[in-house]
């Protein structure tokens, strides 16, 4: 091969690799993006059906109940405007507490209960998951009743 041809081969291979990589990435991106919704958006039925998403807000005080197996828990996530009941089977993270911020990932069940596959609460006491803080801020901005336990500024 002449050097010029060789260069074409290289450029061609490079472009091919780029194309394959972009295709993979875009494809994976499409199917793995997890969108975030607030309890208000859930109540307004703005959420996708049959596809996972995240909700965030506060764990309502006094809403946590545990079934007899010790693992299945029910609680309510609220943005102080709307409430979403959540069911989760598994061990909750250390920083999960009533009256604290939480983010849960899962799907909406047929009865309107959010079936969480994962509950996230992050690394330190004062930390509020940004999504949760955002949900509260949005609900507040739209004129919902404010609450004195509201922590809007994450750290």
């Amino acid at each position, binding site marked *: 091969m002449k050097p010029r041809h060789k260069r074409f081969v290289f450029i061609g291979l490079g472009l091919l690799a780029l194309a394959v990589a972009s295709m993979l990435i875009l494809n994976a991106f499409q199917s793995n993006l997890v969108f*975030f919704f607030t309890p208000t958006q859930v109540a307004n039925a703005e959420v996708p059906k049959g596809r996972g998403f995240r909700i965030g807000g506060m764990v309502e005080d006094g809403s946590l109940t545990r079934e007899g197996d010790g693992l299945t828990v029910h609680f309510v996530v609220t943005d102080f405007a709307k409430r979403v009941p959540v069911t989760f089977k598994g061990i909750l993270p250390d920083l999960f507490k009533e009256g604290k911020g939480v983010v849960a990932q899962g799907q909406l069940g047929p009865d309107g209960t959010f079936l969480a596959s994962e509950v996230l609460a992050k690394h330190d006491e004062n930390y509020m998951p940004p999504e949760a803080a955002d949900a509260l801020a949005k609900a507040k901005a739209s004129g919902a009743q404010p609450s004195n336990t509201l922590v809007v500024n994450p750290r």
Partner: protein
Amino acid sequence: MIPEIGHFALILALCVAVVQGSLPIYGAAVGNSALMSIAKPAARGQFLLVLLAFCCLGYAFAAKDFSVLYVAATSNSQLPLHYRLAAIWGAHEGSLLLWVFILTIWMVAVSFLSAHLPEAMRARILGVMGLVSMGFLLFMLTVSNPFERLIPAAFDGRDLNPLLQDPGMVIHPPMLYMGYVGFSVAFAFAIAALFGGTLDAAWARWSRPWTTVAWCFLTIGVAMGSGWAYYELGWGGWWFWDPVENASFMPWLAGTALIHSLAVTDKRGGFKAWSVLLAILAFSLSLLGTFLVRSGVLTSVHAFATDPKRGLFILVFLAVVIGGSLMLYAWRAPRVGLGGGFSVISREGMLLTNNVLLIAALGSVLLGTLYPLFLDALDLGKISVGPPYFDTVFVPLMTPAIFLMGIGPLAQWKKASLPELAMRLRWAFGVSVTTALVLPIVLGHWSPLVSLGLLLALWIATTIATDLRERLAHTDGNSFFGRLASMPRSYWGMVVAHFGLALFITGVTMVKGFEVEQDVRMNVGQTATLGGYTFRFDGTQQYKGPNYVAARGTIHVSQDGHDVTVMYPEKRRYTVQNQTMTEAAISPGLLRDLYVSLGEPLDDGAWSVRLYHKPFIDWIWGGCLIMAMGGVLAISDRRYRLAWRRKDVEVPATTQMARQTVS
């Protein structure tokens, strides 16, 4: 008083950095050797000043000086001394100080180990490092000063985040930073070469060991971070594709590509411009990683809003360093030249393909990490990119790279023949394919991904064996071991590092394919069975640590009626921050880990308990360690030691290789 001394030392260090970053570079440009010779003493002086500052901060922590804001924010009078000292790098300000401190260590190392470099080159390298250090010192002194006073002084500190009160934390950040900052040397070499306009094989030979050392540290640092997440977070994962982890992984990918590209530049004089670009990339990503993790951008984009000055400084600094060096690259790279030609099927061709694949993988990680941040910053909605994205992208990109990794070392430079390679590798191929297909069935669970993982690991191992056998056949010598020992250390380094990767892949594959986990409610005396082991829960007891109270569970583990071990998982409550922490109990083993962590207390002394059986998980970190050992072997090669010793002698390869670059 002591903190003020530290503060003052930092200001002086900044002054020295300004001198070091300007005069030697100017001197090198105009050929003034008096100006160039400033670089060495300046670098050493700066090291001493930053060391002084570092010791002052350490003293403030040791003496529990809660009139220093940073000390009050990250430690507490009940915190044991070793964690108080580790708290130096427990948050943003101190981490930056550690960063600069390590940068000055690298500078001093360069100043002592650069006797064989031309004067102008050394002046430029130390000058560029001085500029980097100037940026960081300026950042610290303007918006994040670790010595800031708190008046009136706090009565007691707010304590170190309990997650960080762990031996792993004491050593993980310094290791990681040694790696991050180590790439600044490669970066400085690259920028110096661009300034000087000469870039030859000798340049690659000089910067190679530095890059490899940094890469070794980074490998260990990333592995330790992963290990820390495994035993400290309490849910048994070892990699979450969390942005913080990605921030350390991206420089590693770039550094790995750089090592391989430098090998070509060193041996064949090729890939010059590409090596320079990778050096810039690796260091830029290190900077990005440092800032992403430590600035609070990641926990929330809004951290920018809480301290806009800090965020702005970071953005400007990143823009100047990355933008500036890329502009310099665009301007000067054409002078550097591309290097010798080679055929598509050749060792160069395969290394190039591997490099491209590594960079593509890097790009995909970068996209997945930054895209949610961008969307959020532009207020276009909140999304998260989950681990499945990274898994689905990473595996297909790395599979061909690892396949080529097996062939590359056997291929000839310049031009290789495919049929011949296929002949030489037919046994390796046959053995690995057969074993990869059969082994999972023997183990009782076949899935395509397990087979693929095993295939890749076996392919690496068998091709290494093939390569070794061929080389032994061509080496003269009497005894088998004599012939083994006669091969250069750099070759052994490659073999060991590649083998480490094979172990790593085996670990990942086995854990992903065969781990079992169970969340159960356990009453006192109740048993649960998992992976052939029986776990009996014997209840919990209260006990008190230095700065926490804990419930400690006792779990007896037996297998076929024989006692295996007793495990003590804990649930701790750190009193100062009133934060609960799960302390998992792990029984490690070569072939499996047993992992137990306490969930929540239920009625009658029962607990929810999380049990894991994780086969081969320690191979993941063992593999990384062996990769790093490979790096250490490679830099102990004779040719570098000779280069160290040879002082004023011109490196002969310089002129020879320079001629090859015409094409």
